[in-house]
């Protein structure tokens, strides 16, 4: 029934600022950008997995976290902090399962890094 492909869509208040955040700060690849229509998307590091953005007048930040897998969460936090990402607190550990840390995009949508243990 399903074919490979997964896209998250967010409403954002400033498309250019968001694209800059996801490409320059998080390091994802720009996939599309249509300034006139306020639409854009990035390709994540995962095949067929995209994050799309649509500029809107009113934004309600999503509390459903988009979780990105990293190989080493401490190294990833260090690298992203240098890129200006501000994390919410410290890395949480669920013993034997996962290490997690959350942060937000410019519109307050919840994002999370995860290192499977």
């Amino acid at each position, binding site marked *: 029934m399903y074919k490979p492909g997964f896209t998250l*869509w*967010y*409403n954002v208040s400033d*498309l250019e600022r968001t694209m800059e955040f996801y490409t320059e700060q998080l390091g994802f690849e720009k996939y599309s950008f249509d300034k*006139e*229509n*306020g*639409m854009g998307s990035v390709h994540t590091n995962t095949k067929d997995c995209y994050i*799309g*953005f*649509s*500029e*809107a*007048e*009113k*934004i*309600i930040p999503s509390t459903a976290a988009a979780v990105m897998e990293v190989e080493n969460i401490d190294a990833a936090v260090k690298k992203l902090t240098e890129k200006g990402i501000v994390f919410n607190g410290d890395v949480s550990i669920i013993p034997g399962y996962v290490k997690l840390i959350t942060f937000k995009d410019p519109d307050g949508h919840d994002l999370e890094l995860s290192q499977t243990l």
Partner: protein
Amino acid sequence: MEKAVQVIQITKELSGRWIIPILLSLDKSGGRFTPLKNILQISPSRLSSNLKTMTEAGLIQHLSPFERNHPLLPEYELTEKGLFMKEAAYVISNTEHQLSQGFLAAKAWNWPVLLALYCQYHEFNAIRQLLQTVTPRILSRRLGELWEKGLVEKTLITDPTPKYTYALNDDVKPIIRSAMSDLSALL
């Protein structure tokens, strides 16, 4: 005459710098704020304020983020009244194209005055009475501006007391007649 009064009321409601452009561009923008802002070349705050006014007037409906199933779906949709007013906006827009005197509906009372003149209201006080809420100062200014544009002619009557009467220019009359007929047909 009742229909004419209704038509005049419609043109009064459609007066303003942005209401007709928004009604005519909303579909093209997919009902989304950013494309609409870019099509109209309007500042975000001004567009927000106009959309709020139009929502309060029952012309459009604002869909909250919770009511939309996808971020690319419309943020604003025309209501039934909005769809009706969009048709009227088309008539006004097409008529203004024929008149070639710019965006007349951008200024309040231009269209009601043209329609009042078409309905044989030629004297200042008679027009004022028909349009009810127009102030003498604005009515006088609009008549003057329409005269300067060559849409209206004025005649000085000296008997019994000196005063001007106003009428549509002969070239303008058939264009306004057609607009009146098209707008009446919408009712």
